[in-house]
């Protein structure tokens, strides 16, 4: 498979002296769904920001062997523009790139529909529930057709059922668009359900402590959550997480 992204020996020390990540190596192939799991403050978010180019590494390199792909980013908060409707929010990347309005509208409309928000194009963020706001955020991230989707604990604030629904929708979107996803989460179950590979990180400064390869069926739904394969995956991630935090303590 083609290598999409390679981080080698990336470290990040903030101005206040806190070292968020230390010599992080990470290679991601095109089409992978990689989860980063770890305790709070292990630099997972910082790693995503560095990959997105929003923060510069203190040392080490970030390389995109096939050129920098289009990137979509979903934050922990929906982070919508409160003064704009769902459609205008979803259109953001296209508007900023200067895509003509008619085409941008069409593409944003399609993104909203695919994110499960058909009929809510005109709704303002404050009129939407937490789960729907997050769906707008997902629609905004996919509207411009990115090849790489970065997600920073996107569903952490949602109730379990909304979260599971969004997990399934996200998998469908990633599969249909052949997107590579790097997904940061606290949740062992979420990582075990979504990923083809889980990277468990140590507490600050963050490094990769363990790598767990999973092979979930490409099409899965809630019944997969009841299988032994899912339980085994979750157990492996949990065990690796336990080792990583205990080793640091």
């Amino acid at each position, binding site marked *: 498979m083609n290598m999409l992204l390679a981080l080698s020996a990336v470290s990040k020390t903030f101005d206040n002296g806190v070292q968020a990540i230390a010599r992080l190596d990470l290679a991601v192939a095109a089409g992978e769904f990689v989860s980063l799991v770890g305790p709070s403050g292990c630099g997972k978010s910082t790693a995503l920001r560095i990959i*997105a180019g*929003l923060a510069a590494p203190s040392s080490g390199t970030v390389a995109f062997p096939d050129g920098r792909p289009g990137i979509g*980013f979903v934050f922990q908060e929906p982070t919508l523009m409160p*003064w704009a409707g769902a459609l205008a929010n979803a259109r*953001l990347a296209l508007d900023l790139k200067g895509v003509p309005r008619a085409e941008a509208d069409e593409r944003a409309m399609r993104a909203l529909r695919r994110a499960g928000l058909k009929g809510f194009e005109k709704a303002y963020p*404050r009129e939407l529930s937490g789960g729907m706001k997050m769906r707008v955020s997902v629609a905004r991230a996919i509207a411009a057709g990115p090849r790489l989707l970065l997600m920073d604990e996107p569903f952490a604030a949602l109730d379990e059922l909304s979260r599971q629904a969004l997990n399934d929708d996200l998998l469908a979107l990633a599969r249909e668009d052949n997107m590579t996803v790097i997904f940061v989460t606290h949740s062992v179950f979420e990582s075990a359900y979504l990923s083809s590979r889980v990277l468990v990180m140590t507490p600050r400064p963050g490094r990769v402590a363990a790598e767990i390869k999973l092979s979930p069926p490409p099409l899965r739904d809630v019944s997969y959550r009841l299988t032994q394969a899912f339980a085994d995956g979750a157990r492996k991630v949990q065990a690796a997480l336990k080792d990583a935090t205990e080793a640091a303590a």
Partner: protein
Amino acid sequence: MTRYTVPVALGIAAIALWQWAVSHYDVPVFVLPSPAAIRPAFVENFSSLMESLWVTLRITWLAFGLAVVGGLALAVAFSQSRTAEMALYPYAVVLQVTPVLAIAPLILIWTGYEHVERAAVIIALIVAFFPVLSNATLGLRSVDPGLLDLFRLYGASRWQVLWRLQLPGALPHIMAGMKISGGLALIGAVVAEFVAGSGAATGLAWRITEAGNRLEIPKMFAALGLLAAVGVANFYALTFLEWLVLHRWHESAREREG
């Protein structure tokens, strides 16, 4: 409904009490005229009062408009250049904290007593300018950092950040500043007329001074009432504008549910 009926009922009750107290205690008209005595003073001087009202309004609105445009322009300049802000902000504060009454005579001298209106606009502008500037500056700076990250991720230009992110985000602050400035512009206009004293001043403040000098107390009250009405009308006009701009999306304009 009670939002309107309660204050209106209170106002009517207060006016009735005033009327009753003046006649019951036999208060002389040159101390406190009764509402019934103010009404004819208003009717008799209607045309001169309206003329003066127009003068005061013109000064207030012109000063307010200049304050909004100037305050916004300077706030945008501050948001684009930290140096501009560091260099100019202290002087804006100096202008704000120096009592306008102390500067007013100077401004009158500079514009000349034959251009009282010009001086009044400048004085009202000085008073009204700062709230727009400081609120807009604060608003332009209070950008959601997550949204700013997204704009950067998508390669937004400075102009796009300003126009699509900072300005719409600052609207609640800008509207708040405009509401304060609207009231201050009227105060500034009145202060300017008082300082100008006689001469070419013909606004409502001058009507009050003139009527006071002649002990025409009911006429003073009539002019005073008009001034208050203008202030209230300006305030509610701006509140309505704020509602128009913000009600679709901002929490401050949300109707309380339940």
